[in-house]
């Protein structure tokens, strides 16, 4: 499923371009927040279409969480507006919060309650009358552990439950903060599948993450945030085209028997000739194509890494 979606996106069928995506689920207009003299979010502007997955990337302290807090009504902007589903968040907090789901980075479940009780509690808070917690738990791979207290769960299971909790109300906009950070591959895959299923259902997903590969795999577009500002916002493919360098990495064996690396830049007029010459003159051991990662692009744009 992942591969299929990626192919569709790479083929240029970005959801932003479709006619049906004219409406925006999230709009940030000059959104600003400061803690005293420190400007955490500095007049940012962006729009996220309905049904789109936006990867929101940036190092610690870039202003990602503050942005999410303003978008979800947990903080009032010091300037600008956050508009969700056509409503000004600051003025319609409760209404907006009825239509969103939030999955926090740190586990904040009621650990002395069972998974079913946790989900039922939130379903009641959202006013959902008929809710099937067990089916939802099956979707995140927690079948068989529904009636165990959460305190007995592993980190991966708790995170899966957090994701399940965030979609209890079938949200129109889903905010996920590092949903797969530090998880085993099975749990990560389960969570990614749920994110894609939610997108397929029509939900807009705002995905905050450090994991560039995950962002690349899942996001229709990615936004790079640095020092309170959005420094780039586009599809992963466009960003790679604009900022990345594609190259052919070749390992050759010299006459003395030693291995040496050769690199040929792709997408230049000289590329065909360079490739032909290399293959005719050198003894080729391995050949790999290489394209820039989102991490490389982020470093190129901001001059700093994501984990700094």
């Amino acid at each position, binding site marked *: 499923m992942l591969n299929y979606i990626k192919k569709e996106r790479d083929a240029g069928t970005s959801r932003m371009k479709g006619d049906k995506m004219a409406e925006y689920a999230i709009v940030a207009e000059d959104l600003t927040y400061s803690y005293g003299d420190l400007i955490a979010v500095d007049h940012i502007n962006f729009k996220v279409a309905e049904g789109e997955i936006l990867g929101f990337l940036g190092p610690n302290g870039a202003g990602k969480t503050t942005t999410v807090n303003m978008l979800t*009504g*947990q903080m009032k902007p010091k300037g600008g507006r956050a508009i969700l589903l056509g409503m000004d968040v600051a003025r319609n907090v409760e209404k907006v919060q*009825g239509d969103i789901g939030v999955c926090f980075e740190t586990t*904040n479940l009621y650990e002395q309650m069972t998974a079913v009780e946790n989900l039922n509690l939130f379903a009641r*808070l*959202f006013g959902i009358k008929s809710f099937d917690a067990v089916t939802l738990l099956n979707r995140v791979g927690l079948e068989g552990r529904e009636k165990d207290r959460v305190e007995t769960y592993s980190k991966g299971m708790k995170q899966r439950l957090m994701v399940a909790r965030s979609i209890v109300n079938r949200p129109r906009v889903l905010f996920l903060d590092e949903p797969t950070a530090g998880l085993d591959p099975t749990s990560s895959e389960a969570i990614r599948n749920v994110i894609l299923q939610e997108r397929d259902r029509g939900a807009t997903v705002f995905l905050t993450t450090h994991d560039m590969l995950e962002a690349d795999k899942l996001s229709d577009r990615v936004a790079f945030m640095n020092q309170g500002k959005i420094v780039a916002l586009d599809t992963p493919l466009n960003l790679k085209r604009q900022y990345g360098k594609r190259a052919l990495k070749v390992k050759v064996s010299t006459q003395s028997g030693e291995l040496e690396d050769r690199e040929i830049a792709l997408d230049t007029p000289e590329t065909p000739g360079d490739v032909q010459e290399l293959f005719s003159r050198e003894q080729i051991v391995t050949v790999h194509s290489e394209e820039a990662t989102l991490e490389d692009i982020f470093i190129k744009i901001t001059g700093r890494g994501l984990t700094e």
Partner: protein
Amino acid sequence: MNWRIVGTLVSKDLSLFFRKRAITVLTFVGLIFYLVIYFVMPSSVDENLKIGLYSPFSLPASIQLNEEGLDITAVDSEASLKEGVIDGQYIVGISLPDDVIEKLNSGQKPKISLYFTPDVPQEIKDAVEVLISELAYMQTGQTLALDVSEEILGPDMLGTQIPPRDRLRPLLAVFIIMMELLGLANLISEEVERRTAHALLVTPTTVTELFVAKSIAGIGLAFVQAVLIMVIIGGMNTQPFVVLVTLLLGAALATGVSFLIAARAKDFMSVMSWSFPVLIILIIPSFTVMFPGVITGWVKIIPSYYLVDTIHRAANYGSGWADVWLNLLILLGFTLVITWAGIFVLRRKFQ
């Protein structure tokens, strides 16, 4: 205000409260412990009037009164009479001066000193003065003019004629109510520290609904337990409505205090370390009932004094609204101020 949300949160809080083993055990063991203490305390007072008498000469009349049922013991000096009163051997000590006969003969008023233990009620004091006149009449065959002076030896413990068991009522009520603040403070501090409050606040739940739910859960827990205990120990037999309102205000006070503690504490241990000094302070006023006269007027600055005093007066003396309205008003004032302060400091943690 969405009452469906409030109801859901209250039910969640109560469920979590009873899943905390330490708090549940503390609650139930506490309840049983209080009842055991209550029922092992004496349920009646000793009504034998033990009188010590110092007289410089023999008083045949005292022998006659002994025969009529009074317990009069003659002592050989005023000092040993006082000692006997302080030690509790005698409730009353009567000391006749050496010149009593001379003064009576010369038509003067001899000065007779009475020594009382601190807990002697006014009725007994009045009765003893009558007894002295009777003693003089029996001795001389005529009514004599006497100058009687009274002295309390030790602290004034007026009111101890209430059985010790009943004096426990306000103490138990305060103890139960205040112990609940431990559980509630722990519940709230966990909600903040584990950030579950943040998960609630990105649903349609508002901070106000969260506080209302916590208040209802806290007041409910404390109130129900306190009422239960008061019913079992007979505290509701007189003035039940006054007692109910007082317990309700007391439970609200404890909830406000628990908000303040929860704003400072970070985990179970810090809840404990903040709660116990507060608990001790709040329980101090109970000793004004257990040991009348031991604690002076400063105790009135402790909010729980008005809870203790009102319960004591309503449950043990049958005082009605007219007698306790000022106490209730002051208690309400303290409750509002403390709860407001608690919400103010705690609200910042939720946001």
